[in-house]
């Protein structure tokens, strides 16, 4: 079985790297915010309002990345019965939902001064909103069953079915002439973003990613403890017969 599959080994490993992720998150976020809000210059077109980008873009990236984590966890739980996979997926989903909400909120705040509107029904914004509903649907579905394993399986199928939405978000800006501008970083030619702005963006992305890792580990640890106490409860109430 895969090394990480053994819950004990995972708990020990998680315990050791947790403090490092928390430290890395703190450092990156501090440096990132300092760069983003103070050091980096205003944009040639948008002036100061561009600073919202340093939160909006990383949270949008993470919103999509975390959904892939949930989908990957769901696939390995359904197909390979990996014991930790559903724990990881269920631990990651609420964090992903939070980042999606943040991406939508900062997007709207950024949109008002620059586009002239809080919200407009176009392909990119709609598909990100659908992503938020997918997260909320997943969380609701997983908790809607009395038997946690049953909920985990149902949620896993939903998460996999929802994966189709991720490419739609990614390419929505290219397929439709949407109001949302095309990708700045992943352009084929040189990235259209100046290094003085790229550095804070990447720092913020790293910081938020580390934050996600730290919170994910904490949530997984507590989920494992709950699962263990439930198992102990079963033993305590005498369902355990002679140890075969």
């Amino acid at each position: 079985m895969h090394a990480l599959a053994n819950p004990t080994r995972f708990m020990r490993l998680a315990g050791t790297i947790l403090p490092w992720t928390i430290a890395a998150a703190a450092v990156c976020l501090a440096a990132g915010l300092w760069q983003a809000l103070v050091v980096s210059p205003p944009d040639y077109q948008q002036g100061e309002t561009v600073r919202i980008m340093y939160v909006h873009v990383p949270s949008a990236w993470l919103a999509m990345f975390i959904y892939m984590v949930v989908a990957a966890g769901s696939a390995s739980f359904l197909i390979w019965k990996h014991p930790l996979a559903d724990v990881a997926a269920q631990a990651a989903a609420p964090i992903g939902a939070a980042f999606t909400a943040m991406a939508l909120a900062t997007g709207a705040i950024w949109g008002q001064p620059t586009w002239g509107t809080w919200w407009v029904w176009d392909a990119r914004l709609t598909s990100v909103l659908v992503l938020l509903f997918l997260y909320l649907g997943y969380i609701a579905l997983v908790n809607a069953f009395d038997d946690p394993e049953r909920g985990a399986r149902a949620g896993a199928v939903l998460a996999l079915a929802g994966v189709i939405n991720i490419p739609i978000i990614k390419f929505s800006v290219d397929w439709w002439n949407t109001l949302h501008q095309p990708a700045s970083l992943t352009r084929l030619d040189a990235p259209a973003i100046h290094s003085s702005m790229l550095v804070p963006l990447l720092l913020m992305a790293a910081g938020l990613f580390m934050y996600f890792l730290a919170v994910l580990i904490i949530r997984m640890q507590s989920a494992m403890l709950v699962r263990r106490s439930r198992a102990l409860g079963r033993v305590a109430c005498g369902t355990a017969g002679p140890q075969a």
Partner: protein
Amino acid sequence: MKAKHRRLTFVGVGLLLLAGAAGLVLVALEDTVVFFFAPSDLQAQERAPEGRIRIGGLIEQGSLERGGTPIRFRITDLKATVQVSYRGLLPDLIREGQGVVASGLLVDGLLEADEVLAKHDENYMPKEVADALRRAGTWQGGS
């Protein structure tokens, strides 16, 4: 083997359907620009679409009259232009040469816009760098 045979047919049918779906999407994209029309699209269509429409393009240099109300400007895609009149306050990003999407009622060639949105391109750079590039003539982005 029966099971493999059946699984292959399912995957095959699935892929066929998805290919059909992708094909339809591509055809639909050619047909009309879902979010907005470019000025040259309007010229191309025999009958000018009546009722609410959205037009997107750049604000033609020198066509922006910000003084009175309504604010008047022309949207161009360097091939054709549309005269727009707009009652309301423009977002602070709007300048000549700036990408914009205006939606409203098209009345014999004049767009009575009730909503003007700035279309921001994907370039981010400090002001000095933009000016330097423009002086070097390698790039004619918005002002």
